[in-house]
């Protein structure tokens, strides 16, 4: 009898994980066996796509015990998994699993780590209480049927694509792996101002459309140009694109594509979004798919 126990808490780093077998595994499973069924008010959703502690995952690696599925989670004092809506037989088992004397002891995590884990467990308990019973829905926005979908994984999960395609690539949905610059494909230069960068993009095939008032075009999709206004040597520009669900997204340089602004909010209008130092809004433009060339 062997079980893998994972402290599910990290985002970038691998989670702490141990495998225990024999008597130790038997004892832990005994303590985890389902006891009383949770009341209706206790059957809270178990948010798993949150940052910080999310529970302890138990995987039964060989012979499975009766009453417990192959993989399940204990979080906030509740068992969560297929067929499980119960408290564990031992109410203190989660505390034991997350303690320095528990199964993670061989990892020799420092005391500060355990203190941090305790804080996160308390935060998770609070989060679980406050988690909405239904997933939050974006407010209904008019769909832009011709606009690209928001697919951050495609832009972000390949390092070459991530690092070598900038806001201009992303907003036009045109990958070049050259960190494309407005006008470069057409031999037109600009000095990173609205009056010069706009025609440089027009030379690449974008259509300057200053007056659409954030509405979806009938064909193609809408992008927006903003500028960081400072001395020439440091000026920079940034682009957003309006997606199929009506919200705007962007990709700052070689960093990941995102659907939130600098304040962490969804972007309904780049003119009013939190743009950090890019305070000048230049114009909207339309990208007709297949009609542009970037380099």
């Amino acid at each position, binding site marked *: 009898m062997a079980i893998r126990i994972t402290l599910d*808490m*990290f*985002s*970038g*780093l691998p989670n702490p994980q141990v495998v225990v077998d024999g008597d130790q595994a038997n004892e832990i499973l005994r303590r985890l066996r389902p006891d009383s069924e949770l009341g209706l008010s206790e059957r809270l959703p178990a948010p798993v796509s949150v*940052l*910080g502690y999310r529970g302890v995952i138990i995987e039964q690696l060989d012979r499975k015990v009766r009453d417990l599925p192959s993989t399940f989670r204990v979080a906030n004092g509740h068992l969560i998994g297929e067929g499980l809506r119960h408290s564990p037989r031992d109410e203190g088992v989660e505390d034991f699993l997350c303690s320095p004397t528990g199964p993670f002891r061989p990892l020799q995590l*420092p005391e*500060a*780590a355990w203190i*941090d884990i305790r804080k*996160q467990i308390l935060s998770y308990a609070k989060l679980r209480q406050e988690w909405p019973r239904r997933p939050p829905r974006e407010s209904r926005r008019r769909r832009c049927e011709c606009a690209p979908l928001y697919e951050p994984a495609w832009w972000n999960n390949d390092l070459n694509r991530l690092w070598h395609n*900038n*806001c*201009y690539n992303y907003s036009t949905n045109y990958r070049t792996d050259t*960190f494309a*610059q*407005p006008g470069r494909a057409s031999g037109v230069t600009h000095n*990173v101002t609205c009056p010069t960068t706009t025609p440089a993009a027009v030379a690449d095939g974008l259509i300057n459309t200053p007056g659409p008032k954030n509405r979806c075009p009938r064909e193609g999709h809408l992008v927006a140009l903003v500028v*960081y206004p*400072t*001395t020439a*040597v*440091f000026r*920079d*520009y*940034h*682009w957003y694109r309006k997606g199929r669900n009506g919200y705007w997204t*962007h*990709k*700052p*340089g*070689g*960093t990941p594509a*995102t659907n*939130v*602004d*600098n304040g962490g909010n969804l972007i309904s209008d780049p003119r009013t979004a939190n*743009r*950090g*130092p*890019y305070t000048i809004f230049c114009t909207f433009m339309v990208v007709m798919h297949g009609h542009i060339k970037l380099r």
Partner: protein
Amino acid sequence: MATSSSGEPTRVEKWRGGASVYSGRPDPEWDVDQVLVKRLLEMWEQLEQWHGPPPQPPGLGYRGVVLWSSERKRFSAYEGAVKLTAGNSVLVRRDTGRDFERLILQSAPPNTLPPFVAGAL
């Protein structure tokens, strides 16, 4: 940072620094001298492990500094967390006073960094 083995030429690991600041134009990069690199590597060895998710920079504006080598090691530092990526290995450590980050920023040649970086540290 010379490496050598018998019969092979000596290789010097070259390091470059950079700041993640721009969106449209490429980010600034510069050479970092070996004395500073040595100091930074020694500093890295003293840093404690970071626990939990590191701070996430905003989309636009200053997003931290990077230091990378010709041997494919890459440090990135932002708001008290330093991440080292080497091959498939990723380590994150705590840079409590942001000293690691500050040293890399200060190594940038004059007139390399945009004004908004000044308020970042």
